[in-house]
């Protein structure tokens, strides 16, 4: 482990061979929307970065998170060409720790999607099989980590957008407890649900990055200090009593992993989660409602796309939004505007918020019976670009395992559990708020028994 990170630290001395390696992969997978390892943003910290666990490491940043001097496009024509004048708190903390952002990674437009195919600005392929998607919406961040272009990357997770691509690309993906990482500098999509998360090659690095970026921030009123309970080892793992609808390969890895966890000494407890069937409905009602409000700011006036000609300000706004947003974004804005319209609000939005309470209560009960909860991250492995059985509606239904953590605020970690037909399968552990430590502990012990497979064609040869 230390050896791996040591070779990464030679990054700055071996910039030329690093860049050549990263660019060779980039031609195959298109993980980045902008890549500039020479850009070296200033540290604002007086503390020398030498002691930091990320000192000298290059990292990728999802292109809906601000880094001064880099573009901030959100994968949208609306913001194409915009560069950020400031840096997100989470990124600044990493820079202060001596890490260096090398580029901005591709994503589904404004974080809306599960494939990264909804990006208006680039196509990202899965490094394990370039005919397949990298997942989404943080698909570029997952792909660049899996391909060894960077040892870690930041993403954002509104309904699974860190965990699902991590699963598709065979890397670790942490969605921290809501509020523990400042959202200052993250382009808002659904504010009550989302959090900046970490994608990395090892559990240790995932934890180091999380430890660095967490903390209260005066620039984000919803940020909070992590206050975990007294540390105690994880013994009981809750699993779903009736789990159906998994692709055969995912099912096989899941069953095998349960046997591994048993062998490691964990007690598996069957639990019920009756509200699971309603999680996707509640999630998409709330997420689209919040999106319709948050994306109202994109109006072509202060920044972003502006039409060549407009009769009046209203015409300008409509033309900018019509030309600037892609289909998925428009669909979600329409859906969100609809569920918030007077007359429908109680039926949809308020109802969804109450279902959200019911889901939280289900999880409170589960965490009395078990220390963590385990399920597959996604029902399938990475699907092919343009797979007609995975319509955007089907993709939404498949978010059911990941959206619960966003509704409850609880932390979740997707870890690589094995391969099915040569493609990575991820499992997800969830824990009560602030108990990220339990997630790392389970993933760490699992990795000792079943080390994650490296993506074929990756190497650190550039550092030799």
């Amino acid at each position: 482990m230390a050896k791996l990170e040591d070779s990464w630290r030679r990054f700055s001395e071996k910039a030329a061979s690093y860049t050549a390696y990263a660019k060779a992969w980039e031609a195959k997978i298109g993980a980045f929307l902008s890549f500039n390892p020479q850009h070296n943003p200033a540290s604002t910290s007086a503390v020398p970065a030498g002691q930091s666990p990320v000192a000298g490491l290059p990292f990728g940043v999802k292109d809906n998170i601000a880094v001064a001097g880099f573009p901030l496009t959100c994968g949208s024509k609306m913001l194409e060409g915009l560069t950020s004048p400031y840096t997100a708190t989470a990124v600044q903390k990493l820079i202060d720790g001596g890490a260096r952002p090398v580029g901005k990674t591709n994503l589904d437009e404004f974080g809306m999607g599960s494939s990264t195919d909804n990006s208006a600005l680039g196509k990202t392929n899965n490094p394990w099989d370039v005919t397949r998607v990298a997942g989404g919406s943080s698909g570029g961040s997952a792909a660049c980590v899996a391909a060894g272009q960077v040892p870690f990357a930041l993403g954002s997770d509104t309904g699974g957008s860190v965990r699902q691509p991590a699963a598709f690309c065979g890397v670790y993906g942490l969605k921290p407890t809501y509020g523990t990482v400042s959202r200052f500098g993250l382009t808002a999509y659904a504010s009550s649900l989302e959090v900046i998360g970490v994608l990395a090659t090892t559990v240790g690095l995932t934890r180091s990055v999380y430890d660095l970026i967490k903390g209260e921030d005066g620039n984000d009123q919803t940020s909070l200090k992590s206050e975990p309970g007294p540390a105690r080892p994880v013994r009981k793992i809750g699993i779903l009593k009736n789990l159906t609808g998994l692709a055969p390969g995912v099912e096989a890895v899941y069953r095998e992993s349960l046997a591994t966890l048993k062998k490691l000494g964990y007690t598996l407890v069957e639990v019920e989660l009756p509200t699971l069937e309603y999680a996707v409905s509640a999630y998409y009602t709330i997420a689209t409602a919040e999106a319709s409000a948050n994306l109202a700011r994109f109006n072509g006036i202060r920044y972003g796309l502006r039409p060549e000609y407009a009769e009046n300000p209203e015409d300008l706004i409509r033309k900018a939004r019509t030309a600037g947003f892609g289909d998925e974004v428009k669909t979600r804005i329409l859906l969100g505007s609809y569920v918030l319209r007077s007359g429908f609000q109680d039926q949809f939005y308020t109802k969804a918020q109450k279902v959200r309470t019911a889901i939280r209560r289900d999880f409170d009960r589960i965490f009395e019976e078990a220390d963590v909860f385990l399920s597959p991250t996604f029902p399938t492995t990475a699907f092919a670009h343009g797979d007609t059985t995975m319509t955007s509606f089907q993709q939404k239904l498949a978010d059911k395992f990941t959206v619960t953590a966003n509704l409850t605020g609880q932390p979740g970690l997707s870890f690589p559990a094995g391969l099915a037909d040569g493609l990575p399968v991820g499992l997800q552990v969830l824990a009560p708020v602030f108990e990220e430590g339990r997630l790392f502990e389970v993933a760490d012990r699992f990795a000792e028994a079943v080390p994650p497979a490296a993506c074929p064609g990756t190497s650190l040869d550039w550092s030799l």
Partner: protein
Amino acid sequence: MKHIMDIRELEITAELAQIALTPVELERLGREVTQMVSYFEKMKEVDTDGLEPTTHAFVKANRVRPDAVKPSTLADAALERAPELEDRFIVIPNVL
């Protein structure tokens, strides 16, 4: 209650969201919006009597900051990103 959205409802919604849709787009996007709204109907099956709505994932308490002036150096950089500027004013088409 049946809740299939007709085209007119979708047009009103698009108007509110300040998005112009061609008839072809109305048809294409309308299909998924309708599909999702019908799917949301499932939530009716959940008994939520007596449950308070959750508005935020996790909020401990309302947080306020000191009511004090803080210097910001971002204004000029932010203005530079406007599509059209005249001095420190952003230019838009005639309002009247």
